C-alpha cells in the first residue's frame, strides 16, 4: 500500500504515519512512539532517558520534551480528525503542569482535536505517567492550517522529512 499517492490517499492513521514520522529530526531524537488513537485523538509515548532530565540531581523528565510530545500529538490528532495529512502551524500552545512525572517514568501525551474550522484547529490534551486520571499536565492549543501547501494529503516518508508537525510557523 502506498500512503504517498497524492491523488487518492488513504485516510490518515496516526499509527501508520508514526512509522515514518519519528525516524529523524527532533521527534526522532526525542524517541517518540505511537501509543493509541481514536477518531479525534492520538496518544504518543515519550520514553524516559537520562539525557532528557530537567535537573541534574532528579531523575524526572524535563518539561521541555513534554511540550514537544504534546505539540506532536496535537498535530497528529488534527490529521486524525480531518482524516488527511495537511501541514499545520502551531499558533499558540499552553501547558499547565500539575506535578512532576514519577522518577524514571515514561510520559504519555493524549491530545484530542475538539473543533476544526476552515482556518484553525483547536486541541486539548493530557500528559500522564501511566494513569490518565492522575495527569502530569494539561494542554490547550490552536493550530492554523496552511492553505495551498503542495504536501496536502501526502504523508512524508523519506528520512529527510520524517518529522513533521509542530512546525510553528504561521
Amino acid at each position, binding site marked *: 500500500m502506498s500512503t504517498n499517492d497524492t491523488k487518492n490517499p488513504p485516510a490518515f492513521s496516526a499509527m501508520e504515519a508514526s512509522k515514518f514520522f519519528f525516524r*529523524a*529530526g*527532533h*521527534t*526522532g*531524537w*526525542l524517541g517518540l512512539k505511537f501509543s493509541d488513537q481514536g477518531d479525534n485523538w492520538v496518544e504518543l509515548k515519550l520514553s524516559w532517558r*537520562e*539525557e*532528557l*532530565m*530537567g*535537573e*541534574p540531581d532528579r531523575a524526572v523528565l*524535563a*518539561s*521541555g*520534551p513534554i*511540550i*514537544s*510530545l504534546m*505539540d*506532536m500529538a496535537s498535530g497528529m490528532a488534527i490529521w486524525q480528525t480531518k482524516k488527511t495529512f495537511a*501541514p499545520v*502551524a*502551531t*499558533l*499558540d*500552545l*499552553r*501547558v*499547565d*503542569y500539575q506535578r*512532576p512525572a514519577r522518577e524514571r517514568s515514561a510520559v504519555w501525551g493524549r491530545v484530542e482535536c475538539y473543533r476544526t474550522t476552515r482556518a484553525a484547529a483547536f486541541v486539548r490534551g493530557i500528559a500522564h505517567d501511566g494513569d490518565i486520571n492522575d495527569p502530569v499536565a494539561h494542554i490547550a492549543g490552536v493550530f492554523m492550517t496552511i492553505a495551498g501547501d503542495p504536501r496536502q494529503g501526502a504523508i512524508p516518508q523519506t528520512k*529527510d*522529512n520524517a*518529522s*513533521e*508537525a*509542530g*512546525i*510553528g*510557523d*504561521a
Partner: protein
Amino acid sequence: MPETESRLILPPYARALGIELFEIKDGVPILTVAFGPSVEGRPQHYHGGATAGLLENAGYAALRARLIIEEREVQLKPINITVQYLSAGKSRPSFAKGRITRLGRRNANISVEAWQDDRDRPIATAIMNILMA
C-alpha cells in the same frame, strides 16, 4: 558577571538538545542553539517543540541568574508556559532571552523572546509562571 556564568548550569535536557550560554548581558543570560537534527521539524525548519525548549530554558536561566545575585537557594517548579509562534524558525542559530516581569516570594512571572538574525523580529515568545519552593 563571571560568578553568575560559572554557577549558571544548564539542565541535562538543554545540553543534550544543543542549547548553550551565548552571553550574559546586563545580568541576563542569552541562550543559543545551533540548527541540527535534534531541533529539526519539517525539513530545514525548527520543530515547534524545540523552539519551546529554547524559550523555556531561557526563562529558567533568567530566573536562576537573578536568584544567584540575590543569593536565594530555591528549587524551581514549572507552573505553566504559553508559547506563541510568530514565524518559521529557519536553518540557522536561534537565540532566546527571558525577562522577569515580577519576582515574588513564591512565584516568578517571566516573559521570553526567541529570535534568529534580527533581534527585533522574534520568531516565538512565551510567558511562564515558575514556582519557587
